[in-house]
């Protein structure tokens, strides 16, 4: 599917806006490509964002951001809605780490492709932390991570230690989320 966008003017702003006031992103396509090809530098922290909810709502939101180096969602718990965050950070060449400290529900056992190709073509990506996946939701969550690492080489994805028996035989995990030489480690503190 193709979608039109108007690129931001080059050289205008390199400091990211304050995202700390955002608690919820919802509504169909509300942030679709909103920060596509921006020039923000360094780390992005969505310090109070708790949910992303809606069809296409965060789709490609920060795709092709050339200078973002890390992204953190310390409070995000839920991403739901078909294609809700497809490719949200795809094509960010300097992105090295991403962490989801409280995210436990991706797709809400009903959505499709909520975080597919989320980090595709992030060629420097080294580590992703899904610290709060639980045994109840983990399989469905992984269903929504198809090709998450397409075009990425050598990334390590970290999960809680108790989830190997739950998702260790999932086809997307076995295929390294579409990446090359992906490592999946079950080395984080156990959840429920």
């Amino acid at each position, binding site marked *: 599917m193709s979608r039109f*966008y108007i690129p931001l003017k080059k050289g205008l702003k390199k400091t990211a806006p304050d995202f700390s006031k955002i608690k919820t992103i919802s509504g169909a396509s509300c942030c679709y490509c909103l920060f596509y090809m921006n020039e923000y530098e360094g780390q992005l922290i969505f310090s109070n964002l708790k949910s992303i909810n809606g069809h296409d709502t965060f789709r490609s939101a920060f795709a092709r951001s050339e200078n973002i180096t890390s992204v953190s969602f310390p409070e995000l718990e839920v991403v739901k809605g078909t294609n809700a965050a497809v490719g949200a950070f795809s094509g960010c060449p300097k992105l090295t780490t991403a962490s989801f400290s409280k995210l436990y529900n991706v797709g809400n056992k009903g959505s499709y492709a909520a975080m597919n190709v989320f980090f595709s073509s992030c060629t420097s990506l080294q580590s992703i932390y899904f610290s709060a996946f639980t045994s109840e939701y983990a399989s469905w969550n992984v269903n929504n991570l198809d090709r998450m690492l*397409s075009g990425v080489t050598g990334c390590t994805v970290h999960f809680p230690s108790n989830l190997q028996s739950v998702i260790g035989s999932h086809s997307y995990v076995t295929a*390294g989320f579409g990446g090359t030489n992906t490592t999946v480690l079950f080395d984080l503190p156990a959840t429920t």
Partner: protein
Amino acid sequence: MQIRITYVGTLNGVSGIWCGFKPEGAIIKEERPVLYPDSGYELEHIETKERFSAVWLKGYDVEENYIEVPYEEPTQVEEITD
């Protein structure tokens, strides 16, 4: 398309899965052959027509059951210029 091996085991006491390479020093418990399409393609089962980003070949499922078909990432957008 090509088949790469995924290794399941432990390294330094940590359970892990290594896709396409075997880490030095790991204790490997299982090896899984995975069929991958070439870049820009996905796999289509010749009978069911179901499509996959990769396929873990198990049992009687073999490489010959699949063909490659073009794949367009859902994030591709078209630029409007001045």
